[in-house]
């Protein structure tokens, strides 16, 4: 029989109090962890994808839309720009690298991007299997694409027109899978990569067949966007304004656009985080109330233990361990709930949009929340042991009858 044993027996003899304490505390912790995880996932989803991209050049329209489409690959592009214009920009002495992107098709909902070899370097992507694209109608698959569609080297895929999956508007030409990339946790995992030539070729047929709904065509070659990296940050001040004065094209700054987006979303995040902390605090109050009631209801047991020679410190340890046990069980439950529940939710979103991959909580975040829980428990315990300190055993024992 140890002090731990006594603590656990106390909890077991009050199943309702114990359950309520664990339940509300777990709920509070789960909300905190969940918020952190969502925030982390959002950040992780965006930040690494910016990489070295300083400016995105594309057709005029909403700069945020251009950034979302060409950097995060979630929105529709603003339109196309002439390849010649893009080449001119790429030759500017201030430009370090310029990667063209050309959109138009998808395969089972995954976007097919026509681009050049440096695109892979932009995301530090490495080959898991196979080789890079060498000629038209060859594709390299991002890790998620290959895994979810169960595609292997040598497989042939038929692209569908547009960016959404459909079976009506399927192109006749088949792409051949020549390479599969390692997972990078960046957007490239969800992309199918081919060269620019492929996109142009697929849509040449289309123009002949007179698809009036899209203006891919013209004799002139077009691309959707150009991802530009500058040699020095000073170019950020001089080049984009110049580009924005040109007809038909705009230069969007992804960091600036996404920061703006963050700010808007940040208010929502803050509100929910505040709410999570409030519930966490209330769960602390409930924990304190239950511990306090348990101590009060056991007054006689505590007095008996004192006659056995138990010191104040030992009695306080018993209560502290009860709080700790509740905290540990609640934390583990909350963690299981978060990894299980939120994981399932994100997997559902992920399957429908191929967008988010849930970031697992970092050790630091778990530790931070763990410390908050620990502080909450310590405070609850300190308040709950007050009756023990104030207790007059002699009086309690005198009322034995």
């Amino acid at each position, binding site marked *: *029989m140890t002090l731990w044993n006594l603590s656990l027996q106390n909890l077991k003899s009050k199943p309702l109090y114990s359950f309520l304490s664990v339940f509300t505390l777990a709920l509070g912790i789960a909300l905190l962890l969940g918020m952190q995880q969502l925030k982390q996932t959002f950040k992780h989803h965006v930040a690494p994808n910016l990489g070295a991209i300083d400016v995105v050049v594309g057709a005029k329209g909403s700069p945020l839309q251009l950034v979302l489409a060409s950097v995060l690959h979630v929105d529709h592009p603003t339109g196309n720009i002439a390849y010649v214009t893009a080449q001119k920009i790429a030759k500017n002495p201030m430009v370090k690298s310029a990667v063209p992107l050309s959109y138009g098709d998808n395969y089972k909902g995954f976007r097919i991007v026509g681009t050049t070899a440096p695109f892979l370097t932009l995301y530090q992507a490495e080959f898991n299997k196979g080789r890079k694209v060498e000629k038209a109608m060859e594709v390299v698959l991002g890790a998620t694409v290959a895994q979810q569609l169960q595609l292997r080297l040598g497989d042939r895929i038929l692209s569908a027109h547009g960016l959404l999956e459909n079976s009506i508007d399927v192109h006749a030409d088949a792409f051949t899978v020549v390479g599969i990339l390692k997972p990078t946790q960046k957007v490239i995992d969800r992309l199918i990569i081919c060269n620019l030539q492929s996109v142009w070729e697929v849509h040449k047929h289309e123009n002949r067949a007179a698809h009036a709904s899209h203006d891919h065509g013209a004799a002139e070659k077009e691309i959707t966007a150009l991802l530009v990296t500058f040699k020095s940050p000073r170019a950020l001040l001089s080049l984009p304004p110049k580009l924005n004065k040109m007809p038909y094209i705009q230069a969007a700054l992804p960091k600036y656009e996404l920061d703006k987006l963050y700010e808007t979303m940040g208010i929502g995040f803050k509100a929910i985080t505040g709410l999570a902390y409030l519930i966490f605090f209330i769960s602390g109050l409930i924990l304190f109330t239950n511990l306090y009631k348990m101590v009060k209801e056991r007054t006689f047991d505590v007095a008996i233990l004192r*006659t*056995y020679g138990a010191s104040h410190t030992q009695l306080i340890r018993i209560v502290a361990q009860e709080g700790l046990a509740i905290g540990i069980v609640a934390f583990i439950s909350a963690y299981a709930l978060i990894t299980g529940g939120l994981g399932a939710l994100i997997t559902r979103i992920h399957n429908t949009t191929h967008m988010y991959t849930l970031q697992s909580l970092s050790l630091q975040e778990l530790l931070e929340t763990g410390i908050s829980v620990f502080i909450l428990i310590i405070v609850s315990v300190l308040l709950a042991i007050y009756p023990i300190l104030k207790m007059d055993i*002699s009086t309690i*024992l005198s009322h034995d009858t």
Partner: protein
Amino acid sequence: MIQTDNLTFRYKKSKALFRFPKITLARHENLLILGTSGIGKTTLLHLLAGLLTPISGKIQIGGTDISTLSQKQLDAFRGAHIGLVFQKKHAISSLTVFENLQTRLYFSNTSVNNEKIETLLKDLDLYQLQKAKVRTLSEGQLQRLGIALAVVHNPQVILADEPTSSLDDANCKNAIALLKQQAARTNAHLIVITHDHRIKTDFEKTIVL
């Protein structure tokens, strides 16, 4: 050896001063303290147990004057050398009979010896009930468990507060017999305070408050 001298006590917020007669017990001597309600019987017992601190006077138990001990030292002394028996409440109700005895030994700082507990339980006819939760025991069984808890750590003194008041005649006799038997076995002094005159004849030494 137990000796008290010039013992006085006053409760906080109370004017009444309790003066207690001198107690001297030689080896193997037991004592019955009789008195009506409110005369200070329980107060005296709690002074002897170190649960209350006297205003003046000495309480010598074995070689120790417990009136000079600090709170912490008192806790330790009580755990090791004193066994208390109460009228009704005896044990922690969420634990089993056996766990209660283990707990008692744990706090007395003596190593927990399961064999010793079993022997004691057999002695007190509680062996079959060792795994029973305390709340399921009958009055008589509870009283025997109370005695077991008071002696399991081989104390120097067993202090019993109205141990027989809620028992019928048969159980009353039995309880006193067991208390005396256990006191003799562990070489402890037995001090019983009561207003129950049924047990008057069971003690050689009596003090009336």
